[in-house]
């Protein structure tokens, strides 16, 4: 595979799908000696592609898909998760998450954090965290909360450090509770847990440590998001799943991945990360993608900062021997 500027170097082929399927089977059945796999099904492109690879590797009857919706999951998420489950014929269990999250104080702790800057925040309000646009401003990448009142009034307020950290920590109960359930079923069935991050998420740290970042095998973590879409087409993932814009589906207001974490829509983020990984000069990337050099340099700085954070997220526990 050779690198050519910011253009994708990967081409999904039936042979590549076969290679991934065989490798997945080998890793789980021979390496881990597990009979099948468990994964969360979100209705998004990543979990759909991984589920399809697993169905080919182990047979659909040996793949347990968990739906783990909660009070703030979108209707689209619920519907599309069912679409992919029906399409692949997976064994499934529905694990409603809200009772566990409520018991852990997920919503209340997050809302208390937001009340530090929006005192009226409470029942009937909705929220999301957003970052400033990296293309339009030199502004440092610091999150603000957007809070929508029950009567439709929208507030945008920058969070102080303690409120931001508490809001994110509380929200991370969602990813960690899902993973706890995945491992419950994996242990019960003597299965392995399959993770669904793509390369953007894996490399730039867009995951919760010991939450969605935990898994026994991550079959698409080496693939850029555009490459995952190529695989999806080859694996015959339903068109409405392939057409859905990526979403975090983590906060109660609709939130795109680029307004919460990534600097750009996924196709351009892919191109910039690939260029960064191959030390392509900013001027060359700017010319190819139609950015200014300043914009590319800001994107490169953002990538470098995220990789620094990702280093901690990836690190296993340190033994003091």
């Amino acid at each position, binding site marked *: 595979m050779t690198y050519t500027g910011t253009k994708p170097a990967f081409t999904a082929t039936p042979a590549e799908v076969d290679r991934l399927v065989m490798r997945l089977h080998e890793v789980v059945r021979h390496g881990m000696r597990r009979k099948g796999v468990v994964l969360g099904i979100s209705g998004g492109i990543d979990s759909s592609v991984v589920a399809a690879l697993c169905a080919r590797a182990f047979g659909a009857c040996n793949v347990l898909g968990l739906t783990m919706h909660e009070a703030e999951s979108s209707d689209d998420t619920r519907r599309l998760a069912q679409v992919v489950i029906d399409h692949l014929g997976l064994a499934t269990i529905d694990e409603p998450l809200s009772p566990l999250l409520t018991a852990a104080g997920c919503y209340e702790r997050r809302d208390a954090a937001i009340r530090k800057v929006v005192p009226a925040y409470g029942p009937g309000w909705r929220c999301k965290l957003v970052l400033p646009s990296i293309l339009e401003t*030199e502004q*440092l990448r*610091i999150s603000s909360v957007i809070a929508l009142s029950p009567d439709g009034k929208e507030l945008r307020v920058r969070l*102080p*450090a303690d409120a*931001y950290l508490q809001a994110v920590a509380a929200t991370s109960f969602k990813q960690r509770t899902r993973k706890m359930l995945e491992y419950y079923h994996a242990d019960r069935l003597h299965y392995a847990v399959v993770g669904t991050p793509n390369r953007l998420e894996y490399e730039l740290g867009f995951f919760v440590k010991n939450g969605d970042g935990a898994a026994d095998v991550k079959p698409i973590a080496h693939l850029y998001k555009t490459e995952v879409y190529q695989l999806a087409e080859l694996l015959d993932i339903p068109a409405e799943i392939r057409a859905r814009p990526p979403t975090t589906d983590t906060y109660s207001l609709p939130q795109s991945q680029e307004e919460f974490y990534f600097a750009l829509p996924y196709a351009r983020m892919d191109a910039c990360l690939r260029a960064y990984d191959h030390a392509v000069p900013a001027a060359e990337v700017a010319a190819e993608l139609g950015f200014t050099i300043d914009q590319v340099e800001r994107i490169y700085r953002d990538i470098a900062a995220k990789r620094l*954070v990702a280093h901690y997220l990836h690190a296993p526990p340190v033994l003091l021997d």
Partner: protein
Amino acid sequence: MQSTQTITELREFVTSNFYIPTELGFDDTSSFLAQGILDSTGVLELVTFVEDRFGISVQDDELVPANFDSLAALCAYVERKQVWR
């Protein structure tokens, strides 16, 4: 004198709250971001500190490297804000 006091307090906060490897040769013009001294959470903590300690309100459009990327830049920014207050 004001400048000396401000930058001393800022230096004290940064050096006691963030890890600065000794080999970096940290001084008042060292880049917090380029040297990896502050991540986004660190910037947020720094903003909260200057607002609380110096009684200023940092506007979103002032959250730029020109104001927040070194002790010297931050000191100049804080003192400008205090004059405008």
